[in-house]
């Protein structure tokens, strides 16, 4: 099947593929953008009292002193939440655990909401937190998966008899055979710490309750409002139309802003009580405590390899520390099974996934979801295998990569790698990263006693979620992320308007969509008004609309194209009728329809729209009035849930990172001498936007590899609650990233596009780990965990301990 049809879709080639300047930029450069806290607002403020204990029984909550403060408008406790909302529905957990959006009976993580207060302003709300009296009875707590799985571990959910929420094995291909045939097996245990993309703008929302219509009006910087509406209305037990959710400009999301809805729900309860609009702006400290994280994970990987240097299978046992929030528990383990074989022709794969509850904060999808850690484990093991064979790691990878002639290639689980030339990507990356030259330099450096290391990593970056992996556990098809909606219209003045069911959180959607529509209608991006303000009462969302899973380029653009095609078809039919011409003789350009070769015969878009909306008597007798079209689009490659044959995601970009580092023996610090990436994300709609995504996601990975970790002590008290103790990459410390492109059009998207927002996060961790281990090889130090801190490096150099 081929969906790729640029010649059919595009009528001109003036904008698509160009570095068009972003339409979004001016408002930011003059401080005129309207993020949530910038919107006009009259009302009170919300502050949240959070648990100081990792695990404790709530003996009593007394809010009377707070309620006596005249500045306090309303108070909501966990008991209120239990009475007035239904419990949190987990997407994949079938065990009978009950949890609410606030602590009820007991607290399970430091930072869990215990009481929420609305007051006349922010100061008053925060002051009133001191007036709430909560008595806790501390309970034993656990911070990591091994402790949580120990026989005597305290139970975090009283309704089940272990701290395991999900445990499953998903296996495909002849595993036993692979182990029998193997010349050797690489076995290793890896750990990746908790980190997060920490969007610069934390969560923010306002809620107003309209008592006359019983409507909750929520404005939030939510990246998947479609799902939040479902969650909130279900929890409140009200019809869809009784919650309106809008999304203004948002200061970054990266998956982290998929978890705002619990706070919106708390806001709804408060706003109804307070009788006036309320605003909640999450503080950075609150964000670091629980707003939210990628799970830390322990992965045991086995890689049986044949004597000929072929990887025969991949077996992974992964234990995700999913903290204590059941909504998204299990996702990091589940999402990776279908692409766990990376870019290689590995014939058998098995993932034993375990979602473990601890007293750490909640987890939610973060840039790359599970695949960064998985790729770290695979690409570290691939390096080990190459070393075992005495083979150059580049050569070993080339030998195992899916060859271009095998495309489209189906992985053992059923994922379809649709196009790409993986070996060529590797070859070009080696060239761009000057791999051979650095190998020579490395020999010289080693002779001088310097620690120079070169790391490679090859990654697959999937896009557009089929989400059905949840269904594999539950046996139902509740969710699917492969559709999106759009409305495209031509207004009476000839202006083209576009709105979608999704949101933009910094990815340049407005610009890119305007480029596509411009070339479809022969106009310019300036002729188009794109509505950046999502509003559930008018935005054409589908159940899983939103900005996540690299789906924009595929289904959101697909929905806009589908709607625009229908508008265009109607425009042509109407113009042919009015001009008394044949449709096939018509061309579009300059906000008008022209008869080719006859300059005197044309009709402007505005005139067509006037006929369509106003002078409807002039329409062809059988034509419906109006020039606006709502269309929904889906990527048809999504397979229904089937454990034996399933594609988790629907498009696949690929990349190779080449990293050269030098480690300072004295300080354990490292310096990047080279960071080169060659990636293939299919056809690029706007290369400048794509580069920004590739570089930004890579720097996110650099943070996770070297700096960032939400550390906890053994009792699960958080140790990194601000940017003082949780270190982010800064301009001074990140390397310059050189980027090369291949363009293998995706056959399954209309314009041949593929994913581009997460690739760097997925592939970088392993490249850096491999480079550091290579640098430390004179000491025989292994890199098995992230982040790689100077302290760990120094310990490795001193006593050979693995990093």
């Amino acid at each position, binding site marked *: 099947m081929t969906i790729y049809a640029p010649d059919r879709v595009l009528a001109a080639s003036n904008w698509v593929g160009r570095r068009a300047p972003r339409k979004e930029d001016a408002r930011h450069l003059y401080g005129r*953008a309207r*993020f949530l806290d910038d919107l006009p607002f009259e009302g009170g403020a919300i502050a949240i009292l959070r648990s100081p204990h990792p695990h404790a029984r709530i003996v009593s909550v007394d809010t009377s002193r707070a309620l006596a403060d005249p500045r306090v408008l309303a108070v909501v406790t966990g008991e209120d939440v239990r009475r007035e909302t239904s419990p949190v529905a987990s997407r994949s957990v079938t065990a009978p655990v009950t949890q609410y959006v606030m602590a009820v009976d007991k607290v399970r993580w430091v930072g869990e909401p215990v009481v929420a207060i609305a007051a006349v302003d922010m100061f008053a709300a925060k002051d009133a937190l001191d007036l709430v009296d909560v008595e806790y009875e501390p309970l034993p707590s656990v911070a990591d998966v091994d402790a949580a799985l120990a026989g005597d571990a305290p139970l975090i959910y009283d309704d089940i008899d272990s701290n395991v929420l999900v445990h499953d094995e998903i296996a495909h291909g002849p595993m036993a055979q692979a182990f029998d045939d193997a010349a050797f097996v690489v076995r290793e245990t890896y750990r990746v710490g908790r980190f997060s993309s920490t969007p610069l*703008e934390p969560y923010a929302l306002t809620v107003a309750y309209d008592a006359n219509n019983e409507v909750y009006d929520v404005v939030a910087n939510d990246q998947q409002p479609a799902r939040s509406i479902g969650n909130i209305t279900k929890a409140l037990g009200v019809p869809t139309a009784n919650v309106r959710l809008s999304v203004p400009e948002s*200061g970054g999301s990266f998956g982290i802003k998929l978890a705002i809805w619990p706070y919106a729900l708390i806001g709804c309860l408060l706003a109804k009580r307070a009788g006036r609009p309320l605003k909640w702006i999450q503080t950075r400290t609150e964000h670091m405590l629980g707003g939210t994280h990628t799970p830390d994970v322990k992965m045991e990987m086995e890689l049986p390899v044949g004597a000929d240097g072929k990887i025969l299978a991949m077996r992974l046992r992964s234990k995700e520390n999913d903290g204590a929030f059941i909504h998204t528990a299990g996702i990091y383990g589940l999402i990776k099974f279908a692409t766990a074989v990376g870019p290689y022709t590995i014939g058998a794969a098995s993932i034993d996934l375990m979602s473990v509850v601890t007293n750490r904060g909640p987890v939610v999808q973060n840039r790359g979801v599970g695949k960064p850690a998985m790729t770290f484990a695979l690409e570290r093991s691939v390096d080990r295998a190459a070393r075992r064979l005495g083979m150059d790691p580049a050569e070993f990878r080339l030998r195992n990569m899916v060859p271009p002639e095998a495309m489209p290639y189906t992985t053992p689980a059923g994922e379809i790698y649709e196009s790409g030339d993986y070996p060529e990507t590797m070859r070009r990356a080696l060239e761009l990263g000057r791999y051979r030259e650095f190998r020579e330099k490395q020999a010289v450096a080693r002779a001088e006693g310097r620690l120079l290391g070169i790391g490679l990593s090859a990654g697959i970056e999937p896009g557009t979620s089929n989400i059905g992996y949840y269904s594999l556990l539950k046996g139902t098809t509740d969710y699917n992320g492969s559709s999106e909606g759009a409305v495209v219209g031509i207004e009476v003045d000839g202006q083209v308007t576009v709105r979608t069911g999704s949101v933009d959180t*910094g990815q340049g959607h407005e610009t890119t969509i305007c480029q596509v529509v411009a070339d479809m209608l022969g106009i310019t991006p300036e002729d188009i008004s794109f509505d950046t303000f999502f509003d559930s009462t008018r935005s054409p969302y589908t159940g899983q609309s939103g900005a996540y899973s690299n789906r924009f380029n595929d289904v959101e653009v697909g929905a806009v194209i589908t709607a625009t095609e229908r508008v265009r078809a109607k425009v042509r039919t109407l113009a042919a009728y009015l001009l008394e011409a044949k449709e096939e003789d018509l061309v579009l350009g300059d906000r008008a329809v022209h008869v080719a070769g006859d300059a005197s015969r044309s009709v402007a878009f505005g005139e067509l729209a006037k006929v369509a909306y106003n002078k409807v008597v002039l329409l062809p007798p059988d034509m419906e009035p109006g020039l606006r079209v709502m269309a929904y689009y889906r990527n048809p490659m999504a397979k229904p849930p089937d454990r034996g044959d399933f594609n988790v995601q629907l498009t696949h970009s690929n990349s190779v990172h080449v990293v050269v580092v030098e480690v300072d023996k004295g300080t354990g610090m490292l310096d990047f001498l080279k960071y080169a990436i060659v990636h293939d994300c299919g056809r690029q709609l706007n290369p400048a936007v794509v580069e920004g995504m590739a570089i930004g996601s890579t720097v996110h990975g650099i943070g996770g590899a070297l700096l960032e970790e939400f550390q906890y002590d053994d009792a699960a008290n958080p140790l990194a609650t*601000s940017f003082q103790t949780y270190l982010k990459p800064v301009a001074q410390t990140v390397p310059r990233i050189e980027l090369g492109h291949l363009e293998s059009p995706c056959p399954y998207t209309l314009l041949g596009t593929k994913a581009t927002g997460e690739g760097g996060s997925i592939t970088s961790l392993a490249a850096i780990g491999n480079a550091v281990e290579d640098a430390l090889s004179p000491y025989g130090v292994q890199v098995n965990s992230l982040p790689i801190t100077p302290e760990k490096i120094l310990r490795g150099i001193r006593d050979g301990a693995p990093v």
Partner: protein
Amino acid sequence: MTDLGTRTATPTVRVNGEDVTGEVPARMLLVHYLRENAGRTGVHVGCDSGNCGACTVLLDGAPVKSCMVLAAQASGREVTTVDGLDAPCVPALRRAFVEHAAIQCGYCTPGMLTNATALLRDDPHPDEDAIRAALKGNLCMCTGYQQIVDAVAAAAAEGEEASR
């Protein structure tokens, strides 16, 4: 209620050339004063520990994190926010931010631009290391900094061109 909670202050802060006066809680931070009392919502809040730079403004010409200053402390002083930047290098910086795709979500942009303005005003020809050092107090979670650094370098080069 603590004393801190009730005490007020009435600062007069000169914001982009206009005096802004108001009675506010004494504990109010300058960043909130600028946003709420002066309507300068381009000044953003990204942390509560002075580590992100989203709130950067010029205070008597020097780049300062306005979340680390009380509104009362800024009384009688001059503040320039992103929308009031008027140094000669500013138009070139704005153009370069667009040309180099230095903006994604834009939340860090006002702080970055303000800091870059102070840099180019004081050092019109910074090399890449100097640019990266100058921007190290401004976190950007989206771009990985490279395109921002390139934009500042391009604006500096344009200034160099013009001064020849």
